[in-house]
């Protein structure tokens, strides 16, 4: 390939690629917005979980990053943080620490036996 051909091919792929990807995804953006609006009109009381309101703000870091107990993976910590936020919104404040709940001093077999013997019927 000569230099001219390289430049030509590069420009064709760059422009076509970016334009098509953007046009396609912008198109999908409007389609989703459109059908979401239609559904809201059709089903004004559609079953969804209530969400606490929050106001977008710019906050300064004032508390340390939550201390996470050793052995708890990052994704678990992220999932806990997201779950807290999903339930309480920004009113949740800051998560100070994440640690495992104390385990009961019974073995699994003992718990199973206990359940078996205490289950009514």
């Amino acid at each position, binding site marked *: *390939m000569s230099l001219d051909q*390289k430049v030509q*091919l*590069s420009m*064709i*792929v*760059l422009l*076509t*690629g*970016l334009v*098509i*990807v*953007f046009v*396609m*995804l*912008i*198109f*999908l*953006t*409007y*389609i*989703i*917005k459109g*059908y*979401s609006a239609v*559904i809201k009109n059709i089903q004004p009381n*559609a*079953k*969804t*979980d*209530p*969400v*606490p*309101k*929050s*106001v*977008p*703000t*710019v*906050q*300064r*870091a004032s*508390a*340390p*990053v*939550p201390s996470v107990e050793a052995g708890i993976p*990052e*994704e678990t910590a*992220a*999932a806990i*943080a*997201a779950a*807290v*936020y*999903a339930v309480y*919104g*920004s009113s949740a*404040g*800051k*998560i100070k620490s994440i640690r495992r709940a104390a385990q009961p001093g019974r073995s699994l077999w003992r718990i199973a036996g206990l359940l078996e013997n205490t289950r009514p019927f």
Partner: protein
Amino acid sequence: MVIWDEFIHSIEGIFRTSGFATNDWRNYVMIVISGILIYLAIKKQFEPLLLLPIAFGMLLVNLYPAIMAAPQTTLQLVSDYQAAHGGATANYAIVTMGNQQYYQIPQVGGLFYYLYQGVKLGIYPPLIFLGIGAMTDFGPLIANPKSFLLGAAAQLGIFTTFIGAVFLGFTGKQAGAIGIIGGADGPTAIFVTSKLAPELLGPIAVAAYSYMALVPIIQPPIMKALTTKKERSIVMEQLRPVSKLERILFPIIVTVIVSLILPDACPLVGMLMLGNLFRESGVVGRISNTAQNELMNIITIFLGVTVGATATGSVFLSLKTIQIIILGLLAFSFGTAGGVLFGKLMCWASHGKVNPLIGSAGVSAVPMAARVSQKVGQEENPGNFLLMHAMGPNVSGVIGSAVAAGVLISILG
């Protein structure tokens, strides 16, 4: 004495066919590399679900290259065959050459040759996408469709890397396959490479999955360099809840639109959305579970070992591989930068309502890239929860990279 000679002859025969005699130094270098990848997968847990089978496939093919051998046909004189089989005839095709009749005896290929057909024929990547779709919650994207723009901007790495690859002397098809590493989506990279440049499948797959594993190391410096402390501290508005009907319609609408406009992206996007419809419909729980667990795991094993098995010493140890590894890193970096810069643009346009850090999640790599956005955001503001906001661009990046794959196949294929 005759027994001794035959014994020595047999031992020599076994040695001649052993790996010690047939493998060259490049196979041994690849064995060391596969050992390093196995270490990274087990000890460092870098994408172990894929890196471990890839590394072991690499190990096996360099110990025993015939495991990837294609089936062949050998010719044997009919008289010789009958002499060796007590006069029995066989049901093989007979060819006559120089007044001699020969049996065409088919020889089966290596185990991985057959498993590799799923890669070569483009079967495994769409099946992986089926599982990904069944595991993915598109709720954050439906709640905030503008996230699609970040997923589009993060595909910048694919097309800029394409230019770099062309100027390094790769052909257009090879450059397209290298560029798709920037999509940070392993199955898409394999799908495109198997169609455009199957000869580069080994290095591209290893580069794509290695960089996906290194997302938490590659992305944060770029994200911090391109944003201010104030921007990183922005707390975003809670996403609205999404109704079940919206969730069910989403995969159907996306499939119809993408398939009509860009048919080459249909196998990937269609299967992704089919998996998601299984999940969201709520009526095929068993199929949904199979798609996200058993099927996904089986295909992952087949895909991993056979992709690893393409990395033989003679293919992998070349200047091209080094160039691909460097270009792959650039692709990831440009993709991350594209997403973050577009995030800044959206931040400006929305008067500070969008945290630009979520833009980096547009490179796919679900959900690791979204976790990186969350982590970097919380470093600045511990009360900030960006994970759900970053999942929007993250899953739109999957759709965006599939669309980009369709564009590359359409233009270059």
